[in-house]
């Protein structure tokens, strides 16, 4: 037991992202309302983004913008940059892309939801299914 607690503490961000991912995935699968499902979808995607951002984090490092790059005349030619001083920028780049992709998907999905509502006058999946069976019979 004593070695599990440091494990949890050292990686609590990973644990958190797993919890959020589970919440999002559960909402996407189990919820009945289409907008709720979309909220779940976004929570799911944000959880993954949190995971990537956690990958990039480094202790004792600062944000990935080079300090004094153009300040102090031509300082930057002589300045040496240590990788350990700055947070890894690559996951941030990937996640910028992922955020934009998620908002694009959200836009299209909401457009579809509005279209579904125009047709069935409801956002509840079971009610839509009921209308469909009514139409058939």
């Amino acid at each position: 037991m004593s070695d599990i607690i440091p494990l949890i503490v050292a990686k609590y961000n990973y644990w958190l992202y797993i919890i959020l991912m589970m919440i999002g995935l559960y909402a996407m699968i189990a919820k009945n309302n289409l907008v709720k499902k979309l909220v779940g979808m976004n929570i799911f995607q944000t959880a993954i983004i949190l995971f990537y951002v956690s990958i990039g984090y480094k202790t004792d490092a600062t944000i990935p913008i080079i300090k004094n790059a153009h300040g102090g005349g031509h300082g930057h030619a002589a300045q040496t940059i240590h990788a350990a001083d700055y947070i890894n920028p690559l996951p941030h780049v990937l996640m910028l892309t992922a955020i934009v992709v998620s908002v694009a998907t959200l836009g299209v999905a909401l457009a579809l939801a509005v279209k579904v509502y125009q047709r069935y006058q409801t956002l509840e999946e079971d009610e839509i299914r009921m209308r469909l069976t009514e139409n058939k019979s």
Partner: protein
Amino acid sequence: MKFVAFLIVSLCGGLLLYATADLPAWGDPNSPASSHLSPHYIEKALEETDVPNLVTAVLADYRGYDTMFETAVVFCAGLACLLLLRDYSRREGSFYRHIPTGVVIHFKNNAKSMPASREFEHMDKEWVPYDLIMKTVCRILIPFIQLYALYVVAHGDFSPGGGFQGGVIFGSSLILLAISYNLRTVVQRIRERALGFLCALGILIYTGIGVLCMIAGGNFLDYGKLAEIFPVDPGHVRALGMVGVEIGVGITVMAVMVVIYVNIASEGRHDEGL
């Protein structure tokens, strides 16, 4: 359904928890993710691209191809909303309010409409715009939001921000206008056709810069080669290329955000809405 969902979710959670044990410790500077590729980006980016914001440098240069498709995703979303929701049929009837007396007139026939005059105001059926305070505050605020958006785009090389953020902020300033006044105000200020052109223009700028690099003899998006066409400092040309690209991204994102909003809020009729 709930039980199945619970089962699937627990299974996924369990698998991921199982893998967590082997992940490198959180914030470890020597983890593979921080020691394989990223030192190159951190140590060489300023020298190679002359851009101090590493995220922008990686986003628009090293992984510029990704970013082009990211813009393409946004562009595609805008087109998709137009394709799905745009409704060219006209809604029946319209409401006018006589401003001095507050009397509302309802025209049931579309063919007739109130002649333009200052006394009558075209009114939404569902959405009643907010009061004077709201309008005035937003009116004062919007130019500053837009100025800030432009700053974010232009200053993306040196500080957090860039084309996406700037574009989204600019787009949301127009959305704010739509919410505080009404949708028609926005649609009159910036026509649908103009928005459509702007969507295409932004990504065309991005792709065009890439193609220019190819014409100059480099690979696609190799901004370094632009120095051979344009009279610019070869050491700084990559940064300039990135600014150009970011402007393109900003334009597309701005236009697409407004297109998506307008189409969702008015169900594609572009007449009235939130």
